[in-house]
């Protein structure tokens, strides 16, 4: 397949609350990815950094910041911001450079040092910024939206609080096996039910934490991979970065209202499902061919939503798929065997890259205790604030 790029290396800085600079996490992840690839830093021809808004200017120019920290060596540089989809856009940029022949080897890095508690908008009075407005006018935090989606699923599809808790139980059991995860202990349904309500009906253990962390990939052309001795590397076959189509009729972060459908009839596909559809079309594969999926479990209920948007089951059937064990390790289509955000927490520019790190290890067959037997095809899915799609398909 001419559109493939090779994943030569993958690396992470362990996730947690370490209290250090995002630069430290990013460079540690980059060094791990370079070592994994067997590539020297001077061999890298292009650096793509996924930006964080929390590091001030160094965060806004993450590509150059990581390049400087690793030692200026003259590589091409790019910095990208797309909120939670930043990592996917960094991968898309690196892939485009490789496929265009602008570079043979590209280093992708994302890292963050997150605040404790709720994410909040950048400072200052900015009434033109929808993210600032939703906090100022409504106090609508991210869990507000997760709570709205969860309650809606309960009313429309009959999902229960027990279903939501089982997602956490499943992901925490996986995270316990992952040395990069922040939370490495099993969680019971009773513990979820006993945790404090944050945004009804969701409880503290239904919602992902904010974390520090870093993730990195070394991507190359297939030709370079062969010359480098990697005859059967994990390959990236598709990267979806689509925007929604008007009218976007599902209330979404950070908006106070949806688009109106009074002028145009919606085309039927939700934004999340269109993200997956674009990835499948580009990869030339369908959901029935997947070995595993890494999806954005910002909340337990949102993971169920992704099952349907990825086409793992029909609309409304996600809880049934979960109850059958299909999405657990050993099931038909394991989801979030890394432990997911439930076990990692959010380190915004790193997480879409971390999802691809997990696919890489799984497709190589080196994921240790959490290995999905015979994994050949994997998909990631997430979504960035302000209408950024994000999905990556990797194959072996």
């Amino acid at each position, binding site marked *: 397949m001419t559109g493939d790029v090779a994943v030569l290396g993958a690396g992470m800085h362990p996730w947690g609350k370490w209290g250090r600079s995002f630069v430290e996490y990013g460079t540690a992840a980059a060094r791990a990815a370079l070592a994994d690839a067997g590539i020297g830093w001077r061999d890298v021809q292009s650096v793509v950094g996924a930006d964080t808004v929390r590091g001030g200017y160094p965060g806004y120019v993450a590509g150059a910041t990581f390049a400087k920290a690793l030692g200026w060596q003259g590589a091409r540089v790019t910095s990208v911001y797309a909120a939670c989809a930043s990592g996917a856009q960094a991968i898309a940029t690196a892939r485009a450079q490789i496929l265009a022949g602008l570079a043979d080897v590209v280093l992708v890095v994302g890292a963050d040092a997150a605040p404790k508690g709720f994410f909040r908008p950048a400072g200052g009075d900015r009434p033109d910024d929808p993210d600032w407005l939703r906090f100022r006018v409504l106090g609508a935090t991210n869990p507000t939206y997760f709570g709205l989606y969860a309650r809606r699923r309960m009313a429309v599809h009959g999902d229960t609080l027990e279903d939501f808790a089982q997602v956490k139980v499943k992901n925490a059991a996986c995270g316990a096996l992952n040395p990069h995860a922040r939370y490495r202990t099993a969680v019971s349904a009773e513990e979820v039910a006993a945790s404090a309500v944050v945004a009804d009906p969701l409880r503290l253990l239904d919602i992902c934490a904010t974390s520090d962390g870093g993730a990195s990939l070394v991507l190359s052309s297939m030709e370079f991979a062969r010359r480098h001795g990697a005859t059967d590397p994990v390959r990236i076959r598709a990267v979806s970065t689509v925007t929604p189509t*008007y009218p976007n*009729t599902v209330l979404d972060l950070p908006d*106070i209202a949806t688009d*109106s459908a*009074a*002028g145009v009839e919606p085309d039927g596909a939700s934004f999340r499902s269109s993200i997956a559809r674009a990835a499948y079309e580009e990869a030339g594969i369908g959901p029935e061919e997947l070995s595993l999926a890494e999806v954005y479990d910002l909340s337990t209920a949102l993971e169920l939503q992704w099952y349907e948007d990825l086409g793992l089951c029909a609309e409304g059937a996600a809880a049934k798929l979960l109850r059958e064990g299909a999405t657990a390790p050993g099931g038909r289509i394991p989801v979030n065997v890394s432990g997911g955000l439930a076990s990692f927490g959010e380190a915004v520019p790193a997480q879409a890259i971390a999802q691809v790190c997990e696919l890489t290890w799984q497709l190589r067959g080196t994921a240790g205790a959490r290995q999905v037997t015979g994994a050949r095809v994997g998909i990631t899915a997430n979504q960035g604030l302000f209408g950024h799609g994000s999905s990556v398909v990797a194959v072996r």
Partner: protein
Amino acid sequence: MTRTRTPVVAGWFAGEGEDFRLLGTRCSACASVYFPRQDGACRNPGCAGGDLVEVPLSRRGRIWSYTDARYRPPEPYVSDRELPWEPYTLIAVELAAERLVVLGQGVPGVSVADLEIGMEVEVVPGLLGEDGDEASGTAWTTWHWRPTGVTA
């Protein structure tokens, strides 16, 4: 002497009592409605572009979903940190005529236990918070959603 009443955002709502309305804009070419108001150009990519005219939104709609804020939101939400946190509800309301969903706080005193998806609610004037002292301070006004069966 009372605080000066000022809308938390200018141009999003107007009126008092029964005449209180959210204000949006409507495209004269394709009939798309915008809230918050859109004053530049119509965002429908299939629309040749018409004038955007201010329109009051429907007073009543039905609950699309709801939740609450059990923890104090961060700034720029303004709340008195000297006082214990009082959770409020957040309600997403589907307006049939405009075919859009608008999020807002529920009226004080209504909890998630009082709400159901599909329930009818109406928009009413609300107080978001107060700054400064009684004589020279500001009372920030907003909109609230209230179940139509509730008159308190």
